[in-house]
């Protein structure tokens, strides 16, 4: 079988001290959406940080497009084609929307106007507000800025850490729609979500983590249909 675009295989490690992840495996295929769900403290964000290199792994391997990137720094991974949207502090608040996008493209030496145009097409509200400081936008709009910033490097994989945290249900639905659109352009998406049910609905692949280990792994629909997953993690 061919390697997925991105795979963190049998990852074990923590922030020094005890391990948080125990042989945890996360992967995403090209143009697909993979979602990590699980109870609080299950190590969802930690697993994502491990894939992005913000956490030192004791065991296991991370491969991007078949290449071993386990020893690379997060910055080097960005250059290799990974985009990361942190959960909080994910924009430059005093800079305009347009400047935020420019900073996203900082490592690019070529002309990035086309990419910015694509981001504006994807998030039309950002075009409207492009001269406004990003810190003055609403929560949902800021998340769009954050995702747009990460898209400026034309990543092959986009990683989102709880993109819908703290936004209203309507905005959440809209954000999920946008994320599906991003995936349709061929970019693989890996995200951590609190809103497990809605996230699994759009997921091609779902990972249910418990205490830093894989508990269930299946397509989003199959996990939603699994009575055990429903009972334990989706509230019936």
């Amino acid at each position, binding site marked *: 079988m061919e390697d997925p675009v991105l795979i963190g295989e049998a990852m074990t490690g923590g922030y020094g001290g005890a391990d948080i992840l125990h042989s945890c495996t996360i992967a995403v295929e090209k143009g697909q959406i993979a979602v990590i769900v699980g109870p609080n403290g299950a190590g969802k964000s930690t697993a994502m940080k491990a894939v992005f290199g913000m956490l030192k792994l004791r065991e296991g391997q991370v491969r991007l497009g078949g290449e071993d990137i386990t020893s690379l720094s997060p910055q080097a991974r960005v250059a290799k084609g990974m985009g990361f949207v942190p959960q909080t502090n994910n924009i430059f608040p*005093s800079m305009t929307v347009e400047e935020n996008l420019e*900073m996203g493209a*900082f490592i690019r030496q070529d002309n990035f106007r086309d990419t910015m145009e694509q981001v504006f097409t994807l998030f039309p509200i950002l075009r409207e507000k492009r001269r406004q400081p990003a810190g003055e936008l609403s929560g949902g709009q800021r998340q769009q800025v954050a995702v747009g910033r990460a898209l400026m490097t034309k990543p092959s994989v986009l990683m989102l850490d709880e993109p819908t945290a703290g936004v209203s249900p309507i905005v959440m639905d809209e954000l999920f729609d946008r994320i599906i659109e991003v995936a349709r352009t061929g970019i693989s998406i890996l995200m951590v979500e609190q809103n497990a049910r809605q996230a699994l609905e759009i997921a091609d692949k779902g990972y249910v983590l418990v205490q830093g280990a894989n508990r269930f792994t299946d397509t989003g629909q199959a996990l939603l249909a699994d009575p055990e997953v429903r009972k334990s993690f989706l509230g019936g």
Partner: protein
Amino acid sequence: MDPLNAIVLLANFVIVPALAYGSQLALGALGITLIYGILRFSHFAHGDIMAFGTAIVIMTTWGLQGAGITFGVLPTALLALPVGIAATILYLLAADRTVYRFYRKVRAKPMIFVMASLGVMFVTNGITRLIIGPGEQRFDDGTRFVFSVRDFREWSGLAEGLALRSAQALTIIVALIAMVLLFWFLNRTRAGKSMRAYSDNEDLALLSGINPERVVIITWAIAGTLMVLAGTLYGLDKSFRPFTYFQLLLPFFAAAILGGLGNPLGAIVGAYVVAFSEMGITYAWRRFFQHLLPDDWAPAGLMQLLPVDYKFAVTFAILVLVLIFRPTGIFRGKSI
């Protein structure tokens, strides 16, 4: 009643001097605010490094004068500026390499940086006194006045006169050019934007591939340039003495905090507010009101709120009031 004379009087003794002083403070406060925004600490060595840079400018000026080179109607010190700026930037980068970089690497708390900058301040203080001595130096040459009190009286026929000294005009013009260039750099260039991004959100800037060491070097270079400009212009306008320059630290910080730390526009506004407050509160307003009010209403006292010796008390009061009532400053900078 003679409002025209009152305005001319005020311009001569308060407005023009405060504009010049405010411009000098603005250049210093801009450096403070940039360093605070990007390196995230209060740079206490600012006044003394300004004295160091100015000392280099003065000695270069003497050298040029000794060689018979002058700048016509303009002060020779302007020709010496590049030497002073280069020396100061090198000095700041050396301080960064030997002192601050270590604390950046271990991610020390801001207070430790402040203490380190205090150490740099004492060292610089000693170096400046070694190379030029603790005494007062005057190094202005060229034309002294754009127009003098007598010129103005003859031209206008008013009882009160207004003088504009070349150093004051030069200060205002140079400060204006420096500010425009700085804002152009910060808002229009890639390097400037990366500085603002780093100041806004350090982690995200790293994630975006912005090299922090490069940002730090650019910041020191800009702050050093602004310091030498401020110091040289202050010295031309008044006079140079290392201790006076150290004392300027208080109005610099007052201006930067009043405007909102980390906000360049705030530093400029804050600087002029501090300058006008110092001048306005220590000015004897009697003659002004004699011109403005009917004769029998004229005030008997000096109408001076505080003696000139207390001008730093005004600045200190502003600083305390801002910290109590609006710690983020006028333009909502970073809270300290």
